[in-house]
């Protein structure tokens, strides 16, 4: 039973994450004074899914896509982290996209607000490759 539960959670990091987010959101909103994050708009008119859906389920989509890409070589762009990063890049004063070390970063804004630590950017690039040489089409 317990191992089932652990496995359930381990396969779905989103599950505990969702609980934590909910808990944090409740506790933060209880403070009432906490400033809401200023979520930057992405490129284009709309996201690949509804904003509400994305807010709750982006981690599920990313996790699913991660395994599809990793094991099956499926590289569709719709739910790919790389595309999220490209579309939601936030520029600093000099017009360069900021990395996850900057609080203005799209992912970081919300994750800091919700106190949810992610380790995606320990390995993944947190900004588009754009300005570098050798960019491919």
């Amino acid at each position, binding site marked *: 039973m317990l191992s089932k539960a*652990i*496995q359930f959670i*381990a*396969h779905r990091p989103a599950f505990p994450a969702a609980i934590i987010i909910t808990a944090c959101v409740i506790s933060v909103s209880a403070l009432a004074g906490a400033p809401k994050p200023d979520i930057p708009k992405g490129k284009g008119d709309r996201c690949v899914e509804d904003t509400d859906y994305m807010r709750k389920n982006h981690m599920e989509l990313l996790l699913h896509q991660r395994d599809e890409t990793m094991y099956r070589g499926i590289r569709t762009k719709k739910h790919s982290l790389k595309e999220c990063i490209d579309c939601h890049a936030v520029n600093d004063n000099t017009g360069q996209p900021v990395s996850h070390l900057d609080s203005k970063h799209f992912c970081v804004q919300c994750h800091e607000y919700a106190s949810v630590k992610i*380790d995606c950017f320990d390995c993944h690039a947190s900004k588009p490759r754009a300005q570098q040489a050798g960019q491919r089409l």
Partner: protein
Amino acid sequence: MKEMLHYREIPGKSAGYYAVLAILGVLIALGLGAAYYMEHQGHHVTGMNNQIVWGMPHVFAVFLIVAASGALNVASISSVFNKKLYKPLAPLSGLVAIALLVGGLCILVLDLGRPDRLIVAMTYYNFKSIFAWNIFLYTGFIAIVAVYLWMMLERRFNKFSKPVGFFAFIWRLILTTGTGSIFGFLVARQAYDAAILAPVFIVMSFSFGLAVFNILLIGIYSGTRRPLGDAVVERLRKLQGVFIAAVLFFVTIFHLTSLYATERHGVMKFILDGGNVYTGLFWLGFVLIGSIIPLVFCLLNGFKNSARWLVTASVTVIAGGMAQMYVIIIGGQAYPLDMFPGYEVSSSFFDGDIGSYTPSIYEVGLGAGGFAFAIAIVLAGVKILRFLPLSLANSLVDPHYHSEERSEENETAAGEQARA
């Protein structure tokens, strides 16, 4: 009047007890600090690199894990082989076994590249990996020995301690086989890739585990001034001697087998006659300090009945055991892979070179911290639960033991133990 064995917690109120715990606490804290620093900076601050991927933490961890299964031997001898003299020692033996294993595993986990992913290691398994089996063997060992301890300590369940003890004994043999096979199944490395490594690890566990047990037993009894008769000391001393000889025998066979195969002459020369740190550690550390010297203490009559000499012998066994682990784990990696037989190989990635390794203070700190943690568990355990008999005087453990003019002394000592 018939004397009885009474198991009691140690008082653990003396300044000495707290001083020892404080020292262990400092070592544990330093170990945790070292682990934090290594994880934060990345492993480049350690001596480990892409050539020597397992370093000092693994020397400590494998030693402790091997010693853990060996420490259970005392209990096995009592439950499985029905030797009465060992019965009062059995609970402590189980506790030491669990404590050493926990200490070793802590080191291993804290040295991982991503210790934060422990949950992944517990939920994703590749059953072809000996490492994955070992995760079950280790956690299973802790659970089984815990049940075994329960059966031994709860009088109503004493009757079950024999079957559970037998099961624990089989399990520990498989566990050490698994640990040895981590190395034994590495086809690519000439220093390993030998089925005999599993039995080598099993006999090493007998010897190293008993050595740690001896020190803790004698240390705790002298610290609490509980009587410890010659009968026990003498039996442990002989047993330690036999185990040391067995290790020496198996290691000799291992090297002889390897020396017979021309293909392995290079790596054997490197370890046995390379004029390097591994050669020194093998001959001086393992053979001389870790085997021959303690053999003298354990087998010669001049050192009979002496707890002090048994402790000395045990310390040298542990030192020699650590040296042997260093030779096996690090020496085995330092010798280059034979990727292109018949060719001299060179590259910017150190192909063909002897791997260089200098242990960093952080690795040693982590290892020592794990060791300290294991001892701290034992010292805390004997204070909380009734692991140890009030007295292990000869008259109690073996009524037929003929000790000269000692029994009176023991009785007075028994009266004094309350002071500790």
